C-alpha cells in the first residue's frame, strides 16, 4: 500500500481556488508519513495553473482535455475512478465545496472507498485514518475513523486549514484522458454572474449582520436605523434571505458574499460556520446574542450576551450621542 496523498485541484475560469492550497497544505503534512504528495489537475490548457501549483507538491498528474475545461462531475468521475484505481493513493483530498459535494460521494461509492465528508482535520495513526468533524452547528466535535481499505477519501471544509507557501518543485506527468465521447445527460452551460444589488456590502467599512434572532421582518426597521446610525450597511445570514426579509445580495457566508469590513456587528446570529466563512476576516467583530454558548462568540472580539431588542435601541442611542 502506498502512502501517497492525492489532492484534487479545484479551479474556475482558469484560476485555482483557495481550497486547493488549503488541501495541499494538509496533504503535505500527511505525506510526511512516507508518501508523496500529488496534485491531480483536470482541465484544459492547464499550463498557467501548473506553474502556480508546482511549488506545492512532489508531482502533478495533469489530465488535459477540452471536456474538462469547466467542472462537470460526470466527466471528473470517469477520469478519477480510472486514475485512483490505477494509482491507489492512500488518501484523496477534495474540498467540501459545491465541486467536492457534487463529486466525492459518487466517486467514493463507485470505488467502494471509505469517505469522510466536511472534515476540519485529518490524522494518520498506525495505518488508520481519523478525521475531525464539527456537528450540531459546531457545538460538538467528533473524531471519526475510516475502516481499513486500500484508500480513503476525505473532503475538507474550506477555511479549516491555513494555507502555507509551497517550497517543492513538482514533476509534471501527463495522463492521457480516458474520455472518448460527449455525455449528453449533463452539460456545463455557462457561468452566471450574481446580480448586483442596490448596496455592495463587500465595499462597506461597517457591516451590521442580522440573523434569525430578528424573529420577524417587522423588526427590520430597528436594524436599518441602527445600521444607518453607525454608518454601516445591513447584511444577513442565510435564514434571513430564506425567510424573504432581505435579498440575496445582502447574504454573507459561503453561499453568499465574503466581507472584510473594519467593523462587523453580528446581531442575533448564532455563528454557523457557513456564515463565519464570509465575515471572519473583518478587522473587529462584535457579537450580540442572547445565547452565551453561541459559536459566534468564539469568532468575535467583543460580545454582549443579551436580548437584541433591548440592546440595539440603547446602543443606537449611545452611538448617536457619540457621533
Amino acid at each position, binding site marked *: 500500500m502506498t502512502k501517497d496523498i492525492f489532492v484534487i485541484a479545484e479551479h474556475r475560469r482558469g484560476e485555482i481556488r483557495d481550497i486547493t492550497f488549503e488541501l495541499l497544505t494538509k496533504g503535505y503534512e500527511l505525506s510526511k508519513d512516507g508518501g508523496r504528495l500529488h496534485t491531480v489537475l483536470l482541465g484544459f490548457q492547464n499550463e498557467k495553473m501548473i506553474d502556480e501549483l508546482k511549488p506545492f507538491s512532489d508531482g502533478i498528474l495533469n489530465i488535459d482535455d477540452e471536456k474538462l475545461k469547466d467542472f462537470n462531475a460526470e466527466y471528473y468521475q470517469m477520469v478519477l475512478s480510472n486514475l485512483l484505481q490505477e494509482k491507489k493513493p492512500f488518501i484523496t483530498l477534495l474540498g467540501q465545496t459545491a465541486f467536492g459535494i457534487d463529486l466525492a460521494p459518487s466517486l467514493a461509492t463507485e470505488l467502494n*472507498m*471509505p*469517505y*469522510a465528508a466536511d472534515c476540519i482535520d485529518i490524522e494518520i495513526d498506525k495505518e488508520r485514518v*481519523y478525521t475531525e468533524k*464539527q*456537528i450540531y452547528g*459546531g*457545538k*460538538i*466535535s*467528533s*473524531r*471519526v*475513523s*475510516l*475502516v481499513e*481499505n486500500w484508500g480513503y477519501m476525505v473532503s475538507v471544509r474550506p477555511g479549516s486549514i491555513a494555507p502555507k507557501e509551497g517550497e517543492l518543485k513538482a514533476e509534471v506527468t501527463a495522463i492521457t484522458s480516458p474520455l472518448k465521447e460527449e455525455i449528453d445527460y449533463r452539460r456545463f452551460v455557462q457561468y452566471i454572474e450574481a446580480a448586483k444589488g442596490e448596496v455592495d456590502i463587500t465595499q462597506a467599512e*461597517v457591516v451590521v449582520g442580522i440573523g434569525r434572532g430578528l424573529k420577524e421582518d417587522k423588526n427590520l426597521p430597528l436594524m436599518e436605523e441602527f445600521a444607518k446610525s*453607525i454608518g454601516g450597511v445591513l447584511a444577513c445570514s442565510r435564514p434571513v434571505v430564506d425567510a424573504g426579509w432581505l435579498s440575496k445580495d445582502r447574504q454573507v457566508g459561503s453561499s453568499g458574499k465574503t466581507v472584510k469590513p*473594519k*467593523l462587523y456587528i453580528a446581531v442575533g446570529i448564532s455563528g454557523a460556520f457557513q456564515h463565519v466563512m464570509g465575515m471572519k476576516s473583518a478587522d*473587529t*467583530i*462584535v*457579537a450580540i446574542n442572547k445565547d*452565551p454558548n453561541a459559536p459566534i*462568540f*468564539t*469568532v*468575535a*472580539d*467583543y*460580545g*454582549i*450576551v*443579551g436580548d437584541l431588542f*433591548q*440592546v440595539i435601541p*440603547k*446602543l443606537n*442611542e*449611545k*452611538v448617536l*450621542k*457619540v*457621533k
Partner: protein
Amino acid sequence: MEGMKTEIVKMYYPPAGKMAEILEGGVEEVSGKLCEILKGKGLL
C-alpha cells in the same frame, strides 16, 4: 453494521479557543462600554 465505512470514535466539546471579551453589566452599561471601545478604535 455491514457496509459501514466510517465510525464515530468519540464526541466531545470543541476545545476552548479564542473567546470574545464579553462585556458585563446591564444594557445601559454594556452599550456604553461598547461605544467607548469602538470610539477608541476609531470605528465611531
